[in-house]
């Protein structure tokens, strides 16, 4: 996807949705549904649950498009955060997750979709974040990945990496601090 061009298309469509334009919602759906569906499916691991959450997301976009605030981030950031939050809320309400296989930090894969072609399409923000994540300790990186992509809680991550949950909390908190510092440089 051509990031910048798409982002301004999406932002313009969000403004029209706020004015009650249903065609604009379809435009946003066309431009974003494959990305947002992949995010839902990654967290929930099941198509029908992911589609239900995606439906909720677009109905929320319809109602709340006026809340989108360009000062707080791009349209994609707003949509991805909303989608992840809805998917995680759903995980918490069902009380179980499909992602409980053991994580071995040393052999953990770098990225769900790495490879030169994939990397070329990524935005500058993504590459910057990726560099900062690469600078973390292996176990910190693995823990953050389990939280971000699998929607795991501290407790679940502690089980998956076989450490006490207090240790997991300190790993993640330390990693988040490092990430913030690195991104601010």
């Amino acid at each position, binding site marked *: 996807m051509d990031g910048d061009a798409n982002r301004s298309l999406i932002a313009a469509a969000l403004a029209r949705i706020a004015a009650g334009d249903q065609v604009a919602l379809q435009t946003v759906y066309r431009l974003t549904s*494959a990305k947002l569906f992949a995010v839902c499916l*990654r967290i929930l691991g099941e*198509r029908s649950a992911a589609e239900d959450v995606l439906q909720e997301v677009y109905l929320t976009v319809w109602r709340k498009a006026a809340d989108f605030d360009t000062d707080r981030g791009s349209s994609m950031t707003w949509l991805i955060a909303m989608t*992840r939050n809805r998917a995680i*809320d759903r995980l918490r309400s069902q009380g179980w997750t499909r992602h409980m296989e053991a994580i071995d930090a040393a052999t953990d894969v770098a990225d769900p979709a790495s490879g030169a072609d994939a990397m070329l399409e990524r935005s500058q923000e993504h590459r910057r974040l*990726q560099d900062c994540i690469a600078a973390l300790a292996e176990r910190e990186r693995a823990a953050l990945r389990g939280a971000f992509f699998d929607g795991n809680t501290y407790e679940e991550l502690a089980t998956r990496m076989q450490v006490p949950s207090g240790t997991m909390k300190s790993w993640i908190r330390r990693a988040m601090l490092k990430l913030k510092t690195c991104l601010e440089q």
Partner: protein
Amino acid sequence: MSDITNHSGAQGDMPDDDMIAAEYALGVLAEPERAATAQRIARDRAFADMVAAWERRLAPWAEAIPALAPNPQLWNRIAQALPVPARQRAGLWRNLSFWRVFALASALAAACLAVFIYFGASGGGTLIATIDGGERRYFVATVDIKRATIAVMPAGFAADASRVPELWLIPPGGKPHALGLLQANRTVTLAVPSDLVGLAVSKATLAVSLEPAGGSPTGKPTGPVIGSGTLATL
């Protein structure tokens, strides 16, 4: 390495609130902390800004997930669940669906009046709720406490080809209890099970979710909640 169970000041310069915002944005909080944090975001603008800053930092990571199209039917489902478009509202007086709704609303007003007169005279308890979502009114429900029944009339609910609307009773601060399936084209009268009659009180919530044919297989809402409303004494 020492464990940090209470992170106040333990991580250098980062204030507590910013770490909670980071944990929420990452998605690592379990319930009830997650729900409590979501409530705080809704009422605390400064805290919401911290969460938004973390979401901005983390969101680019989602680009690592390869895009995947959802079921092609999904857009139709979403379009059907949308409130009446603004275009249609603009041409209200020439619009057929407006007159349908108007006729329905008039009939409803008459029915409410009849119920009011009937129960006003007999002293029986009646509760009413409108079940709304977004800007759309989906159903209107009337609870007859004496008979332990609930009558639910469709207002602006459009049938979904693959799923059915299911009605839930949620007492204040409690969990949803299934009451039964609704119809898009006619009023349905459901018996309220005897163990639930006590929960059908003023301020209890009625909600409608979309479920697979035959209703929720789990006894809890599994599909999207399209609308809800609070019961009030008529």
